[in-house]
């Protein structure tokens, strides 16, 4: 790789040991992908919580903090695994909660803004067309690339932190024009009237094309999708397909036309998604005769507008006896929802609103499930319906209003 004078200084340790190690890691990653140079980034978003990092990760952060590591560009954090107000209520380990606090302290010493959100693109930072960023959480990356036309690869925790420390990333993947062009076409004939429909579309397209470098081009979308629609589509594509970018003709900035989305090349494949395909996704999930007593709105965290919708659907109702309704969001959204009265309506109905976390990464979630005897998990998030299966939940993807109906009655509509 061609390094600048500044980067050579970093490698010699002239900008400190933490920066030297960070750049070394980045160069190895760059070499793997054939990067020719490093490029500057203006914003970093990183994942780091005790559930995923473990003792070894915490020790790594402690060493970095001792080396006086400091982020060179604004760096924010993804959700953590603990909402400290709910440790006891959820039956999480107090020891792990204490470790999470330590970990947060190390990140803050390194000047990480511990905002603990996976919807940074809705609440914290909206990069402009062509802006290079280094974001973690696959849902944030696909949103940055697709909806903003910004440039990011999936940057895992250590890689994002390295980018924060050096202020740059190796130039490969979605940092390069050639990987941003569409590779296959999806003709959308489905109506897509609910957030879960968009997630179901992402599942259908992602599951059948698992490849980071596959870039679907959605064509013929009839509705003008909102930010939450695109959020659920992107999160599902990234979750089921490991994808980092999509185009939507007439909607996303690098796809003013079908031709432009493919950069003049021909699609390798054309697939069509109809209403019947979306209905088949829903039909593929079943309660298998077990109780429908857990409904979760999470993965990604809820935006303020999603909170508003939930508040309206739950207004004056009560979660069924023995039922549970969880919502996760950011601190900022929860505060705003409180000011606007949405939070009170959700809580009055018996919903639990957790902040700064995502449901599937909750510390101890498998044991929480077992202790409560939960078998089924109902959600309007296709991503959550996929990802939480690792913790032995049987999941059911349902439309938003149907999820609320299930929470309130314990029955499918």
């Amino acid at each position, binding site marked *: 790789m061609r390094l600048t004078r500044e980067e050579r200084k970093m490698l010699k340790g002239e900008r400190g040991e933490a920066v030297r190690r960070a750049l070394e890691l980045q160069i190895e990653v760059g070499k793997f992908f054939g990067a020719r140079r490093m490029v500057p980034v203006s914003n970093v978003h990183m994942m780091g919580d005790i559930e*995923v990092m473990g003792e070894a990760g915490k020790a790594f952060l402690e060493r970095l903090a001792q080396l006086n590591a400091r982020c060179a560009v604004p760096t924010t954090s993804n959700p953590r695994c603990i909402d400290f107000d709910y440790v006891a209520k959820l039956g999480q380990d107090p020891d792990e909660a204490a470790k999470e606090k330590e970990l947060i302290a190390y990140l803050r010493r390194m000047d990480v803004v511990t905002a603990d959100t996976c919807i940074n693109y809705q609440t914290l930072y909206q990069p402009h067309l062509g802006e290079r960023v280094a974001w973690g959480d696959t849902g944030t990356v696909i949103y940055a690339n697709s909806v903003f036309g910004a440039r990011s690869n999936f940057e895992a925790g*250590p890689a994002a932190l390295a980018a924060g420390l050096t202020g740059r990333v190796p130039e490969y993947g979605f940092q390069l024009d050639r990987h941003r062009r569409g590779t296959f076409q999806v003709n959308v004939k489905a109506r897509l009237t609910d957030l879960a429909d968009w997630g179901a579309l992402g599942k259908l397209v992602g599951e059948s094309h698992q490849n980071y470098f596959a870039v679907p081009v959605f064509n013929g979308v009839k509705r003008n999708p909102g930010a939450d629609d695109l959020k659920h589509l992107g999160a599902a594509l990234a979750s089921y397909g*490991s994808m980092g970018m999509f185009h939507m003709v007439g909607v996303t900035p690098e796809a003013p036309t079908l031709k432009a989305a493919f950069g003049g090349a021909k699609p390798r494949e054309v697939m069509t998604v109809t209403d019947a395909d979306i209905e088949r996704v829903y039909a593929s999930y079943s309660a298998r005769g077990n109780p429908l007593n857990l409904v979760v709105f999470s993965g990604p965290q809820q935006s303020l507008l999603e909170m508003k919708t939930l508040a309206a659907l739950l207004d004056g109702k009560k979660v069924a006896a023995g039922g549970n309704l969880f919502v996760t969001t950011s601190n900022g959204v929860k505060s705003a929802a409180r000011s606007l009265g949405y939070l009170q309506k959700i809580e009055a109905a018996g919903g639990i609103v957790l902040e700064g976390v995502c449901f599937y990464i909750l510390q101890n979630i498998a044991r929480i499930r077992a202790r409560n005897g939960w078998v089924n998990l109902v959600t309007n998030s296709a991503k959550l319906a996929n990802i939480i299966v690792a913790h032995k939940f049987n999941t059911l993807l349902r439309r938003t209003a149907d999820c609320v109906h299930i929470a309130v009655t314990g029955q499918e509509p």
Partner: protein
Amino acid sequence: MSAARGKSIIKLGRAFGGVVEGRALISREGFSPRYDLDRWSGLISRTGHALEGQNIKDSILITPSAKGGIAAGWAFHDIKAKGIAPRAFVFGVTNPVMVQGAIFAGITISEGWSREPYGLIETGDIVRVDPKRRTLSVVRKARRAADARG
């Protein structure tokens, strides 16, 4: 025992890490440490995964694709520290998270196969990954008991 000792059967597209040998664990299904793995035991825990119930510890994990999940970055480091990491990841196609995570943890990783390994390599075979030469070779075929899972 096979005569195939050290025989290069698959060329790898790109690779990082040291030369490693180990028991092949081969799947036609993609892999994610977040979605599929119990990161305390090393067992593939996802209900219905092609390798459900198998342990990845010290294996050469051969899998066609990477699934979602930014978590691999820390997770590989964590499972390495816990002593339950595989010796190498041999992906058909992967994503940057897996690469960043494996490099950070010092675990050998590769992407790209000159041909599909199914039928050539079976779970339990002893295989070698040589990142510099970009080869995946069979050192010793497993003795086939009653059941050979693939």
